[in-house]
């Protein structure tokens, strides 16, 4: 807040630049100074970009929108960590006071076969939409619903469902996973809907369809390292993955064809 602790930082950036999905990318180095320690990471990039534009160069493309840590747009890997060093924080909520003057910062896009780079740090995460489309919903048309209080949900279960539903689909789990697996993303939705009575009628078909879509999209398999949960800005629990494994086995056993 421009408080008494505010300082100015000098930084060495090493940023991934890639013109389009087809072209080969490369790193470019930028020296920046006079970055306020109160600025957010994206505001630091705004400053860099304004300078690039003034110098007649192409600014660094990156996805961002709400800048409040909830829309899930921002998506970069900062010094090897998706969303940077701070736990439970999306890039837009990471502030420069987490860095020291003189630091070198390497900024890369999320890297996964299923998240092709569109330009620079912006990637295509539409595979997540396809996974949701394949089964991440409760099939209920508008107008069919009964009174909301006729479906009681125990408080503890509602809380767990909420914690899983808090996923913002940023893809940090995929970015952090050594196998580019989307299991944490899928499991969060399977748990959210599976824990609630409303999700019960489609419990089996949902998990099978979503997992198959995930595999078709080219994500890897889970090897239980827990890197996904550590990188998750919403700290979605790794427990969901174990639940997903169990739900998948159960649904497979019950499948009739």
């Amino acid at each position, binding site marked *: *807040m*421009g*408080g008494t602790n505010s300082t100015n930082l000098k930084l060495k950036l090493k940023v991934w630049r890639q013109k*389009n999905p087809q072209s080969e990318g490369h790193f470019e180095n930028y020296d920046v100074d006079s970055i306020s*320690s*109160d*600025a*957010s990471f994206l505001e*630091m990039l*705004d400053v860099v970009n*304004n300078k690039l*534009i*003034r110098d*007649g*160069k*192409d600014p660094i*493309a990156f996805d*961002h*929108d*709400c800048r409040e840590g*909830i*829309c*899930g*747009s921002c998506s970069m890997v900062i010094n090897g960590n998706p969303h940077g060093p701070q736990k439970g924080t999306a890039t837009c*909520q990471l*502030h420069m*006071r987490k860095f020291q003057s003189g630091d070198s910062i390497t900024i890369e896009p999320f890297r996964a076969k299923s998240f092709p780079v*569109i330009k620079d740090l*912006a990637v*295509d*995460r*539409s595979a*997540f*939409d396809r996974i*949701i*489309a*394949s089964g*991440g*919903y*409760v099939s*209920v048309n*508008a*107008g*069919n*619903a009964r*009174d*909301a*209080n006729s479906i009681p*949900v*125990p*408080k503890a279960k*509602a809380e767990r*469902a*909420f914690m899983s539903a808090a996923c*913002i689909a940023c893809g940090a789990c995929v970015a952090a996973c050594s196998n580019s697996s989307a299991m944490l993303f899928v499991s969060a939705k399977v748990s*959210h*809907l599976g824990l*609630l009575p*409303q*999700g019960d009628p489609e419990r089996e078909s949902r998990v099978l369809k979503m997992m198959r879509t995930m595999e078709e999209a080219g994500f890897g398999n889970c090897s239980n390292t827990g890197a996904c949960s550590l990188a998750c800005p919403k700290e979605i629990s790794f427990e969901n993955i174990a639940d997903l494994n169990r739900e998948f086995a159960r649904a497979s056993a019950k499948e009739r064809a």
Partner: protein
Amino acid sequence: MAINLDSKTPGGSLEDKWSNYKFDMKLVNPANKRKHTVIVVGTGLAGASASATMGELGYKVKTFCIHESPRRAHSIAAQGGINAAKNYQNDGDSVYRLFYDTVKGGDFRSRESNVYRLAEISPNIIDQCVAQGVPFAREYGGTLANRSFGGAQVSRTFYARGQTGQQLLLGAYQSMMRQVAGGNVELHTRREMLDLVVIDGQARGIVVRNLRTGELETHAADAVILATGGYGNVFYFSTNAKQSNVTASWRAHKKGAAFGNPCFTQIHPTCIPFSGDYQSKLTLMSESLRNDGRCWVPKKEGDTRPPEQIPENERDYYLERIYPSYGNLAPRDVASRQAKYRVDEGLGVGPTKTAVYLDFRDAVARVGQKGIEEKYDNLFAMYAKITGEDPYKSPMRIYPAVHYTMGGLWVDYNLMSTIPGLHVLGEANFSDHGANRLGASALMQGLADGYFVIPYTIGNYIAATKIGHVDTNHDAFKAAKAAAQERIDKLLNIKGKQTADEIHRKLGLVMWEQVGMARNKAGLETAIRDIGKLREEFWNDIRVSGDADNLNPELERAGRVADFLELGELMARDALARDESCGGHFREEFQTSDGEATRDDANFSHVAAWEYTGDPGITGAKNWARHTEPLTFDRVHLATRSYK
């Protein structure tokens, strides 16, 4: 050109209007729905729920969003909750009470019939969302929990911690994605609408730019729905997301859709204040904090001591002093204005002197830090993350920020604009909140429009209207596409010195100073002049880097800023023409001796609907005509709000 501002409100008593409408409306045969294409622009609460529901009904829906995924629309960031007249708390709530509170909260500048329908539908929204699996907060017995919000004396707000908007949007998004998988909704992401195509007086399609490839595409349909949100970003600093913009609405406005009450803007009192030149946006801190936090400033100008060292008798708890009965819980517009007065008096705090304290010291002393943590931990953590300061130890610094725009494209009872076939939902329309929106009512309106209003009214339009066949080979499509291309080329070829962001910041400053929390005639006239100059600056000195054939955020931004530069002037003109103070619109000339708003019901009990009369190219002055739709209040008595 005369425009028709007939609200088409159905007959019958207030309670029967919507039922009458549903019975009298024309229906589209289920088998025929497949033959009708409807375009939806925007995938927030209103757009996603509309797409899902029309897909379920069997229409051929084409949905567009500027984001890479429809789930990123800014509805996702709504924190507090959603109102519904369920009366689960047995505290005397009813459809009528919600209707009454909303009309009164809007300072009597909304249409009774629309607001009543909104209140009537509100319980169905909660049922629908719960059925979809939205994880609302629950009581131990498994029933739904409620909390209270500003402007109401009952507990009718449903919530999912501080992420209600996210959970509601995911519910709508998931329902829409089910229709995408089922082939009823065709989803186009990273597409920005650049123009509306009007043929024979009907909205028949859109021109969009594929933001990935830069390609311009045209899409034809039988009707077009805009659900593209509000225009708070005209102020540069707002709680809106960075991509939120007015372009789709503005293009439609220039093609003939009247703009309703553009000057009605909501300034939210509790936001994390501006801190430095690098700053890109403002972050909201939930209104609920004012339940325990006390607002104050030092009594002495230029008091630079740390807040903890300022003794009690040198602090001015100004809300408690001025509004002894409501104190810190005074409504949004009032609390915002008082904070501004303090800063204007030179009593502001913090390095930029543009903030007031929101102090939890007494609450911590009363219930302990643990008690505060239980209620607000996520908000305190967010504050600490952004500011690097611990709000348990020293008071928060807060300041008002632009949050929501009540104004928007004018719509009738069918949610149809003055262009036949063009429907407008959610924050993008002007309809339900009058001059001030109550907390937790935006989510309610977005979902009401999408799930329960447009599915009926779109059918009525399609069934009752003769819609000829057109496709994108029609000359109107070609012309609109060529115009969009020309505009892009123009932006890229100016090659001036200033970035779009720089000019946007300048516009924001003018808007905030002259068209913000308090307005006056001289200031508004200055604003109109200054905005005109900025527009000239923009079209002569803008520098847009990169090319048009790939992802180019600078080009997107420039196009949006160009539209804000026109909208800003219209807002100032609207504020200038409305010689009264009401809700979020405060004209300094129209106030009581102690600084409260004075409404003029005799002359301004109407909606101002602005018709664009100029050249669709660059605007100069005097490009609008002001029309009015009179507001009549059959059920609610006009009264002055008092919070003392």
